[in-house]
């Protein structure tokens, strides 16, 4: 019933780099003798990152309650060793970082894992906001061998079956990590694509090997993104980009969601079993968080209460999302010679008149000058300007949300 689908290969072959001899764009970039890539590629990635940060429209409405399925290609193409140690292990170790980060930055969102190999697709981790469960799945997947061919259609069908029933106010997303150059599908993928579009699911693909026509089509039709990685650093960068919620689709409705803010347990509480480690050998202790609705105990937050279904979060994790409401304004790139600063306001690095520090970055609110590294770090990770929050006038009107 499953016939190999060669459609991906027979159209416009000239268009694809892998066919014209470049399996990867980055092979054109020379490695030096010690195996390190020239600094230009790091620079290129950092520049691209800054551009993406600039492009991210501050005012865009974000569908923050996300439901994301990560589909991992586990076909034989993942055994290649161009990413170290293998594509398979490289991807999984990036997911190991991605998963906790995703739940931290998207406190009321849910994640699930699907893998595809041997022409089929299988759900390995149900949608949930329990990072622990997904991390255990990733551990299991490291042991699983990569074999056969992948199927994009079957993977999308598995994701579709679960995502289409979700309430209308959620953002529905699929992220495919894909190494193979073909897909082996049971039928017309267009039919699946139509259903995916109707269900308002955004599909993005991170390619490990080459551009493939079908991935281009799917991502274009569903308003997702399609990028092929240059190396392992770039791959991590591309996957981590999906930590940020995508712009909300217009079709999303809004609603109020009930959440609980559990108490951290004080020492005079009765020792209790936690709900998260019931399967291991649980130890009785008093440390942890109680569900305010049913008093079940959890070691870590965020979590979804297994007993009463309440979403359990902490105020700091919710506050983390408010950066979308109060985004850190972009800094202006100026020439070092135009500023009187001798050092970066934040990290105290001395500026030198060499290439790296020729341009510096100025906060439009507090006018302090920052180095390139701090500009990226503050916008990408911190989301507050140390200059503005060190200024009593600005900080009084800025981000005072509790």
């Amino acid at each position, binding site marked *: 019933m499953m016939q190999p689908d060669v459609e991906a290969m027979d159209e416009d072959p000239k268009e694809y780099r892998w066919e014209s001899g470049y399996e990867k764009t980055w092979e054109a970039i020379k490695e030096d003798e010690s195996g390190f890539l020239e600094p230009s590629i790091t620079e290129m990635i950092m520049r691209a990152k800054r551009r993406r940060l600039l492009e991210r429209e501050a005012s865009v409405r974000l569908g923050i*309650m996300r439901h994301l399925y990560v589909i991992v290609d586990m076909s034989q193409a993942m055994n290649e060793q161009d990413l170290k140690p293998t594509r398979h292990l490289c991807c999984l170790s990036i997911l190991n970082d991605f998963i906790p980060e995703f739940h931290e930055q998207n406190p009321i969102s849910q994640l699930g894992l699907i893998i595809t190999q041997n022409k089929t697709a299988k*759900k390995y981790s*149900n949608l949930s906001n329990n990072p622990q469960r997904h991390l255990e799945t990733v551990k299991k997947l490291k042991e699983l061998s990569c074999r056969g061919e992948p199927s994009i259609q079957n993977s999308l069908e598995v994701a579709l079956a679960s995502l289409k029933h979700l309430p209308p106010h959620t953002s529905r997303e699929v992220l495919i990590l894909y190494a193979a150059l073909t897909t082996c599908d049971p039928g017309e993928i267009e039919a699946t694509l139509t259903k995916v579009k109707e269900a308002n699911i955004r599909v993005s693909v991170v390619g490990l090997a080459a551009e493939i026509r079908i991935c281009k089509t799917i991502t274009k039709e569903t308003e997702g993104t399609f990028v092929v990685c240059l190396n392992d650093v770039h791959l991590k960068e591309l996957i981590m980009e999906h930590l940020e919620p995508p712009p909300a689709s217009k079709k999303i409705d*809004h609603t109020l969601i009930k959440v609980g803010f559990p108490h951290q347990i*004080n020492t005079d509480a009765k020792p209790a079993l936690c709900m998260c480690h019931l399967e291991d050998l649980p130890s009785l202790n008093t440390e942890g968080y109680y569900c305010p609705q049913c008093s079940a105990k959890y070691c870590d937050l965020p979590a979804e209460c297994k007993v009463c279904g309440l979403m359990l979060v902490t*105020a700091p994790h919710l506050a983390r999302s408010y950066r979308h409401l109060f985004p850190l304004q972009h800094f202006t790139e100026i020439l070092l010679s135009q500023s009187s600063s001798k050092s970066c306001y934040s990290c105290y690095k001395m500026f030198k008149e060499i290439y790296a520090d020729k341009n510096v970055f100025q906060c439009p609110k507090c006018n302090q000058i920052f180095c390139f590294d701090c500009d990226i770090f503050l916008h990408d990770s911190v989301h507050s300007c*140390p200059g503005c929050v*060190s200024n009593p006038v600005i900080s009084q009107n800025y981000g005072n949300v*509790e």
Partner: protein
Amino acid sequence: MASTSASDSEEGCLLVIILDVHPCLASNEGEAEVYLNTVTAFANLHLASSGANRLAIIAANHAQSCYLYPDQSHEEVERQIDGRLELLSHVDKILHENLKKMMVTTTIFTQSESLIVGALGRALTYVRRIESEDGLNKKINARILVIKVSTDAGGQYLNYVNMYLTAQKMRLPVDMCVIGSDCGLLQQGADITGGLYYKVNSVDKLMQSLMMIFMPNLDSRRRLALPPSGSVDYRAACFCHRSLVDMAHVCSNCLSVYCKAVPLCSTCNALFGMEMPIRKPPKKKKND
């Protein structure tokens, strides 16, 4: 993880002290002197205890935050210093010079709180720069110590959380030592970043606490019986009344917190339909 104590002594520890120098210190000159001398002595002890140890001090008052040490205008002098003792007296000198400068430039007295969070942001980027300059193979054991004297007005919550979660991601513990009254905001920070929180009753007890609690490196701390930190309050304040709640409704678009169901989000103007029950994903056992 297990072998960090050995590498600790070789690579040393980068300690960044964030020092509150709020003008309220001026109300008791004798106490202010004890306070500053204690911190200087503690900084010296840190530098003296290992040749590989490193130090930075960032001060904050109600008007600004400011690097006290290192000081780039003294970099040349510092390069010529070879003895450890000479370095220590040099550190003392710089600290006092820069503190004086800072006091002079901020003469207007207001009641507002110290801008600790600004100093904290600068400390994060400082640690990050030193770590990257040291190269990928050597991980310097960095930690931040906040010493706070002024009372807390509870402003800038969001900025504090941004700093805490970044420090947590960097695996950078932030220790909090407060003098006088408890500070819930700093207590959350210590809990989130894996640092210690401790309240000292008065300035003359500060040295003892710094030595007993905040001097030991991270590994030896695990072996010490430290005072329990108590429980940390992680409830959120609703946007409508600013009261703390343990259950709430949040807007699915912007996560604004409401203590009661509302028809419209006052933050992002989203209109709400009927409230959705929390829906569990369908369990399809036959496929799994």
